[in-house]
């Protein structure tokens, strides 16, 4: 069991670091939007920090100001790149801190859910590798990641179930039409069949609500996670949510581990 645990921890670490590495490269390529004279330059967001005590505001300016931002991005990129290939080390708190700082720099979040899940996974990995790789800490850290990931599907499912337009398939069509990418040709055909849209919407809702069932059977869990990967790949195709794909993928080994552990 401990071997499996260590193996799952290692996969989680590698995929997480890969996801953060990709995020960091993306940030690097849009850094002209984050530094002077960019829209999100410190000059423009400075007043966001006025409610903080003055000393903390100055500290933020020192760390998140335009000059230090590039350094912050490079450190995060290097740490993540290092973590992809090296066995789990206690670098997670550092990555957690850097990711939180970047979210604060983006006035709370750059990419909402994916930023939140990145922090969840990094917090879980901090627990898992703290103070040394003890099986109990690994189990607790991975369980935290798994519960939050399953909760994310379940809550999203409940939210959609409560909206009549989601149950009728109208909301899905609307989201695809308003996405930042023009609707694909095949979607125009699908949109002509309201019943088909309704079936697709209901399938999505059932899929999301079924997340907790992963804990009942490891076999079901594998099937569910396969469907989950496809679901996120489609979300990337339709809505450009590539960050969600990678960071949610990083939580899958933990879900499988929790499922195995509950059955043992």
């Amino acid at each position, binding site marked *: 069991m401990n071997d499996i645990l260590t193996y799952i921890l290692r996969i989680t670490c590698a995929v997480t670091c890969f996801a953060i590495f*990709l995020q960091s*490269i*993306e*940030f690097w*390529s*849009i850094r002209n*939007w984050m530094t002077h004279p960019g*829209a*999100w*330059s410190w000059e*423009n967001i400075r*007043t*966001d*920090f006025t*409610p903080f005590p003055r000393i903390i505001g100055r500290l933020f300016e020192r760390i998140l100001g335009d000059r230090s931002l590039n350094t912050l991005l490079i450190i995060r990129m290097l740490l993540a790149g290092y973590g992809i290939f090296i066995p789990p080390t206690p670098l997670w708190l550092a990555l957690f801190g850097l990711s939180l700082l970047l*979210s*604060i720099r983006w*006035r*709370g*979040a*750059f*990419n*909402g*859910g994916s*930023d*939140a*899940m990145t*922090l969840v996974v990094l917090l879980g990995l901090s627990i898992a590798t703290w103070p040394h790789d003890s099986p*109990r800490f690994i*189990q*607790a850290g991975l*369980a*935290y990641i798994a*519960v*939050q990931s399953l*909760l*994310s599907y379940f*809550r*999203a499912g409940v*939210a*959609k179930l*409560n*909206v009549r*337009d*989601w149950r009728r398939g*109208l*909301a899905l069509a*609307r*989201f695809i039409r*308003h996405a*930042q*990418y023009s609707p*694909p040709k095949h979607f125009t055909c699908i949109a002509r069949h309201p019943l088909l849209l309704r079936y697709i919407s209901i399938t999505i809702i059932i899929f999301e609500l079924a997340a907790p069932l992963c804990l009942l059977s490891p076999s079901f869990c594998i099937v569910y996670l396969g469907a989950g990967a496809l679901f996120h*790949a489609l979300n*990337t*195709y339709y809505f*450009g949510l*590539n*960050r969600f*794909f990678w960071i949610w993928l990083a939580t899958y080994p933990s879900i499988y581990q929790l499922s195995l552990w509950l059955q043992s």
Partner: protein
Amino acid sequence: MYALGICVFCIISARIALNFSDEISSQVLQRFRILFPSWRFFGEADSFTLLEYQTRDSDLVSQWISFPPQEKRSISMLLFNPSGNLALAIQSLIEQCAATCYQNPRTIHDTLPHTNSYKILNSVLQQHLNTSQQSIDFRWRLLLQTSYGDVQEIYQTSFDSRS
């Protein structure tokens, strides 16, 4: 005992996520809202906030143009999609401005221009249009599209972008 500990830990973390995410009013906590995710993706489907801008070059005024512009799909965006993610951040900024409009519908013309979201959104458009190098002036408007397809203007700026 250990299993019980893990269960309690998981339940508490889930409860914290559920309780804290619903309403975070404090401005300081807003900066840390990422620690309390709501996980309610695509849960609000009643209406969409859209942004359109119009440019003026000398006396020539353009049509209203939708912003951010639509992007092209490619396989590579699974690995690398900075412009797509930036567009999502801009959309989130647009929604923050719209939320301010809903909170203060009567005093919107006094309150919104003093918010940071407004200032940043204006800078985003300036950067997009690269107005610092050209003599292009612009204005923008926020539109609300309801689930029935009706479009309603909720805010409009004037041709005074460089102030």
